[in-house]
């Protein structure tokens, strides 16, 4: 169960290798979380992470196979986790690919695949989770969206558009779940230093997985529906969102 301060006792991470999700899970385990399931394309690679989580106090830590690009498998994979562990208090939708816009420009199939993973995969997996949450009468779906989806930029609009879709989907799902005990929390990080962004020039207000995780924990304790990380971005993007296109093109060009 989730407690009054937003701490949960069990968590499933879809995209279990994500560094941002990893930092969040560390904090969850540090608080109350005793059951951790990491769902990833290569579950075996997560053994060291599982050992670390057990050492930190997780009574149950396991990894299962999960591919965002195979929506047909999501129902069975996610149901199995819920059936095996009983209540899952939180599910984190953490998978995602950034890709390279220059490559996408010449490889539409690769672009479509990124869209499939980031958006299509999230839609199908989230709907399976929502159904389980409805049945158990509670649950928090934490969706890692991105400021890139708040206003898309010319230099990563494929990625940005997948996050825009994901963000809109998550908000709609959250509204649809009102009254069911389940809720959706949308996280909008800015540039975060992880393997996803390795080698890319950092954007202003770039941050770390630990800082994002701290912001998430604070937001969960306060019952927020949207969490910006770092929090300053909410002010910045309130302005960015309403800039005329021509101005935005200049502001966002790098």
């Amino acid at each position, binding site marked *: *169960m*989730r*407690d*009054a*301060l*937003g*701490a949960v*006792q069990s968590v499933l991470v879809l995209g279990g290798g994500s560094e941002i999700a990893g930092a969040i899970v560390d904090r969850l385990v540090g*608080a*109350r979380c005793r059951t951790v399931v990491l769902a990833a394309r290569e579950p075996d690679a997560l053994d060291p992470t599982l050992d670390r989580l057990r050492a930190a106090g997780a009574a149950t830590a396991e990894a299962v196979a999960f591919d965002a690009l195979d929506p047909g498998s999501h129902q069975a994979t996610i149901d199995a986790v819920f059936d095996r562990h009983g*209540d899952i208090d939180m599910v984190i939708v953490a998978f995602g690919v950034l890709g390279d816009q220059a490559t996408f420009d010449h490889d539409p199939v690769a672009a479509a695949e990124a869209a499939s993973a980031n958006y299509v995969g999230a839609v199908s997996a989230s709907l399976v989770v929502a159904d389980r949450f*409805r*049945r*158990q*009468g*509670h649950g928090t779906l934490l969706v890692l969206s991105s400021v890139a989806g708040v206003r898309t930029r010319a230099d990563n609009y494929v990625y940005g558009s997948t996050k825009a879709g994901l963000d809109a989907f998550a908000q709609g799902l959250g509204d649809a779940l009102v*009254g*069911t*005990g*389940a809720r959706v929390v949308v996280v909008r990080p800015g540039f975060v230093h992880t393997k996803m962004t390795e080698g890319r020039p950092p954007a202003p207000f770039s941050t770390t997985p630990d800082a994002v995780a701290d912001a998430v924990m*604070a937001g969960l*304790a*306060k*019952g927020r529906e949207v969490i910006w990380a770092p929090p300053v971005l909410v002010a910045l993007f309130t302005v960015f969102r309403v800039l005329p296109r021509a101005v935005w093109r200049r502001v966002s060009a790098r």
Partner: protein
Amino acid sequence: MLARPHITEVSGWGRTAPTAADVRRPTSSTELRRALPTRSVRGLLARGLGRGYGDCAQNSGGTVVETTDVDAFTIHDADPADDTVLVTAEAGASIDRLLHALVPQGLFVPVTPGTRYVTVGGAVAADIHGKNHHRKGSWCQHVISLHLQLASGEVVEVGPERDPELFWATAGGMGLTGVVLDATFRCPRIASSRLLVDTDRAADLDEVLALMATGDHAYDYSVAWIDLMAGGKATGRSVLTRGRFATAEEASAATGADPLAYRAGVLAPAPPWVPDGLLNKLTVRAFNELWFRKAPVSRRDELQTIPTFFHPLDMVGGWNRMYGPAGFLQWQFVVPFGSERALRRIVEELSRAGCTSFLAVLKAFGDGDPGPLSFPAAGWTLALDIPTGVRGLGPLLDRLDELVASEGGRVYLAKDSRLRPELVPVMYPRLDAWREVRRRVDPEGRITSDLARRLRL
């Protein structure tokens, strides 16, 4: 009750962590009884007026049966020489309704919490305590029998002499042994509806503890309000109010012809929507300051009404909304007498953390009863409201829980919303005995709650 499921979110008084359940509200005891055995895979739970602060009256994904419309009660005939009168009340009868009937007849409830909006079922399930605990113990010590419906649907009568294990497992058992259908309890006589109250202002914690330790025995009712936002030398400054029911003659100045006249109303509902942060550090500090200055250094024999003395918070309807949408929690613990140093450390840490807390309540408990999960035990109990947004609140309370446990103390499950499950067996060392009784009457755990899930009861 084959009606279509009525899925609704329910939460406790603190409005944190709501969960959804199929909420039923039977209108008769016959209908109430039909709820068990349940077919819901996530089980069933009884709920009263939802004044438990945390998740004790929630059952996510399962069935929740609200008893509030099953509220008939009978005041039994008694010999005028007896100093108590038996009352049998259905589970959903509230102390509010009982008082409206009892007080004009010269009777009171054996125990009342800080709000009169609790049901008899909730009073049993939390084995509630009041300002008279040092003298009269908790609610279930006044119960002579009750009807309990078990998970199987079977109805049993239990009492201190009749299946005492099950009776005491139900006292403070947070609804997890079965559904209380009704209870019969002793109500004391009163000669007026006024209390004769003495007030003492204490400059710090030492002073209030000393006043209570040396003087409580002379009063039927005693409680201190303590200002946790005061720091430094004023840490623990308090206002202690103690009293007893006045005789008809003593009360006559205030009551006129009818010494038992009783009126209790809600003066003002809290506005439906209050800006987040109305209760912030500044406003609360100012309120507490004012309240402390307003209290007399010492006043004797003041006549107060029942609502003023026992239920001041009930004067504002729905005040729990003032904490904003994120809600708040209440933390209440007891530590044994002799643990004053720990108590002081806790008060200091809370006041240093700057928790935006209206006055906290401090009281000296008398001995506990045999209920393995019953909260009260001889010692000091402190209760305070804290908004959930306070920085570092989780780790702070976790540390203080450890301290309470290491002193042989415990927190109150009816108010809990965040305890670490590992601490429950430490705080309630007879948890296993309680579990055994629960297994006997409900081997499959069909009666359950979010509290039970969270704390792995």
